[in-house]
């Protein structure tokens, strides 16, 4: 019988090999991999540089605001943590080794699988982002050899904690939650609602003050201290300042938190391990309610939009609605981007922006920083929406091949798909607007948030139509193989289109956010319709542009099918 370490080594090796092999199976995936790798490296370096720069800036220019720096550290750690958790939530399963059901018949203990799955995270390419940030933090907080060693251990435990939480998300998302009965899911959502209410009260309390005081910073830290990011931030900060007793105390709490989280995850993992092959359960036992809801929702949208869309586009939209709504993970997908995301964005960003407002008055901080912070909120939402949209396309990606074999007008496919996404975005924007109103206490801000977000989503669709239409043009249909030169050209083209896309987003972002920020309602009255017209114009152009491209894509698919 092979020993524990030997099996862990084999499993981690398997994961690394599969990760490596997942890049470059065909020309399209080679291109996507190159773009992904370039993006990851640039993003990791840029993020680390931004964190180091911001921290040094605060250290030099905001010398009195010590709490802000601690808060910044805690927020950075939280950001990395949340980013890591969201990666699997958005469906980026970059290799096959998450699926332990393929190993269930082998003589391997579940604890071995569990440890290997945690360590296997180091074989993921996305690890470059947290590792680069951790390296930056290590650089910022290292004073001598002792602090270096202490910080290294702290960050290692923090990263392990993050991996375990990521593992928990993966288990829940792909294996556990779909099997939980609805009433159990309702209990979980009730708990989430209580958490939101508690968070709301906390934020509301801090907004009672005209400006955010040091008390609020301390309050924020008090909240964070119950979470891994706060514990790690406290340990790092105290070690840097030489308060070793407090530093070790925080490290102890972080370790305990990691162990408890590991134990909880292991319980779920064991359940998964024991029931991992339950897919053989007879058809028709589950999902009846979900199907009824899906039928109801799709029928509603068909009825609502039948005056505006052709029958073909409506059918495409209906098919996508049914595909998505009947998906067992739909509820979870909607929960994360449409509820938890906006709560985090509004509360964290608004809180920090208010503090920046306060600092600006006190210490003459450049006004552009406040504006940039406001823009930041918008762009996070955009990125989130983009990821979500990508995931939806991934979900029904195979269905589009079936449509290509029909006589349907290809432009109607694009219109139908855009209409489908807009109906989903409407839900996102409504939740976002309602939360803005609830958390900030001003109805008009809720309305602006709703309108602004819908506007941006519309533009995102236009950009999506353009970028997804650009790619197939680069391939020689007669030669399926792709050269290194083509890959590089494609990567450049992709990077260029991404940059252009971002530039397109700036005008409506300015139209919507700046008047709110500077309390200019008259500008808002002009700005909202103007930006709507701008976005709708792009959407219209993109549909007419993407139609012929889809036709070409169809020919490429048909060629591949006939080759196969």
């Amino acid at each position, binding site marked *: 019988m092979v020993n524990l370490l030997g099996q862990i080594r*084999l499993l981690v090796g398997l994961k690394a090999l599969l990760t490596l092999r997942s890049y470059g199976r065909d020309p399209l995936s080679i291109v996507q991999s190159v773009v992904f790798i370039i993006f990851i490296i640039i993003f990791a370096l840029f993020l680390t540089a931004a964190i180091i720069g911001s921290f040094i800036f605060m250290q030099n220019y905001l010398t009195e605001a010590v709490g802000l720096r601690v808060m910044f550290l805690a927020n950075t750690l939280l950001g990395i943590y949340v980013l890591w958790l969201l990666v699997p939530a958005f469906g980026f399963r970059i290799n096959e080794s998450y699926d332990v059901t393929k190993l*269930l018949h*082998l*003589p391997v203990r579940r604890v071995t699988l569990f440890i290997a799955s945690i360590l296997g995270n180091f074989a993921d390419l996305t690890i470059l982002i947290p590792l680069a940030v951790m390296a930056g933090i290590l650089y910022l907080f290292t004073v001598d050899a002792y602090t270096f060693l202490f910080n290294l251990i702290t960050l290692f435990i923090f990263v392990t904690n993050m991996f375990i939480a990521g593992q928990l998300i993966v288990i829940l998302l792909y294996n556990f939650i779909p099997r939980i009965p609805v009433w159990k899911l309702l209990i979980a959502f009730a708990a989430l609602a209580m958490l939101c209410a508690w968070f709301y009260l906390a934020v509301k309390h801090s907004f009672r003050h005209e400006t955010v005081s040091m008390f609020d910073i301390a309050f924020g830290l008090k909240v964070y201290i119950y979470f891994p990011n706060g514990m790690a931030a406290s340990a790092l900060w105290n070690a840097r300042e030489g308060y070793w007793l407090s530093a070790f105390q925080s490290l102890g709490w972080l370790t305990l938190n990691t162990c408890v989280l590991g134990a909880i995850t292991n319980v779920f993992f064991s359940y998964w391990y024991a029931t991992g092959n339950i897919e053989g359960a007879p058809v028709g036992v589950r999902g009846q309610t979900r199907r009824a809801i899906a039928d109801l929702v799709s029928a509603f949208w068909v009825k609502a939009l039948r005056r505006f869309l052709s029958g073909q586009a409506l059918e495409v939209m209906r098919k996508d609605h049914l595909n998505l709504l009947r998906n067992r993970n739909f509820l979870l997908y909607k929960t994360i981007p449409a509820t938890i995301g906006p709560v985090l964005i509004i509360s964290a960003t608004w809180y920090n922006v208010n503090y920046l407002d306060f600092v600006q008055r006190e210490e003459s901080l450049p006004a552009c920083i406040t504006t940039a912070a406001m823009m930041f909120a918008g762009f996070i939402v955009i990125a989130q929406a983009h990821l979500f949209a990508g995931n939806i396309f991934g979900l029904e990606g195979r269905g589009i091949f079936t449509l290509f074999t029909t006589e349907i007008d290809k432009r109607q496919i694009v219109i139908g798909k855009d209409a489908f996404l807009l109906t989903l975005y409407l839900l996102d924007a409504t939740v976002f607007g309602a939360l803005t109103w609830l958390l900030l206490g001003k109805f008009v801000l809720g309305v602006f948030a709703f309108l602004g977000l819908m506007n941006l989503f519309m533009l995102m669709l236009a950009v999506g139509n353009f970028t997804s239409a650009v790619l197939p043009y680069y391939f020689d249909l007669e030669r399926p193989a792709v050269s290194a030169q083509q890959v590089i050209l494609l990567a450049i083209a992709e990077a260029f289109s991404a940059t252009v896309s971002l530039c397109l987003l700036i005008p409506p972002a300015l139209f919507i956010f700046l008047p709110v920020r500077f309390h200019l309602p008259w500008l808002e009255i002009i700005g909202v319709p103007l930006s709507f017209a701008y976005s709708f114009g792009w959407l219209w152009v993109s549909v007419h542009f993407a139609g012929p491209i889809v036709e070409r894509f169809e020919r490429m698919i048909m060629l591949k099918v006939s080759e196969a």
Partner: protein
Amino acid sequence: MEYTIFLEGVHKSYGPVHALNGIDLQVREGVFYGFLGPNGAGKSTAIKLMIGILYPDAGRIVINGYDVRTDIIKIKASVGFLPEQLNLYERLTGREYLSFIGHMHGLTSDMVKQHSKELIELVDIEADKLIDQYSLGMKKKIALAAAMIHKPRLLLLDEPFTGIDVISTRRIREVLLTLTKEEKVTIFFSSHVLEIIEKLCTEIAIIHKGKIIKAGEIEKLKREVGREGTTLEDLFLGLIAESDAGSIASKESVEPTPGENIG
């Protein structure tokens, strides 16, 4: 007598659906044992319980002398398993996959190399191609080779011949027969292809709606039910029909029809 496979009163449910309703089964060492049943009868569930992928709700399962509740790792180490739905890592080559499985079973690198070479020749596959480039038959063959790499005492094969061409089927059949005759390996396999079962197996069990309706030597069973000289297909269809008729009759005797007064 010690059995290679011993099941006693095994129950397994998926929510409200009872997949297995207290099955009893005994399989001796070195026997080529066929497991028959219509779709949804509980064949795959029973096999998954034997390998420890699923846990029984009630009953006792002993495989190769090990109890499934206490010695699950030992069972997995001593059994080779070919699932109906092939769970392969498709971005590995056939050779890499065999090497991974061999090492996970604790074989040395030399043993892995030697066994892989033998098995690759035996099942006749292109071992250096990625598995995702294999046809279904080739995938079946590599999965079968992986199930045999550690030279197990028991092979549990769930629909092993589905999707495999005639030439390969004959070759694999010969290999499996050699294993049972010369090396006393017990082979337990489920299949819909009754001709193959009739050619290979000495003993069978027929499962229907989660219950074993008949088990034993094929010829003995035919005599028992008065179907001597008929094919296995006739025997199978006859027993299933009898079982259905029996269950309907027993249901009718318990449930009153609408408007009928049982008092």
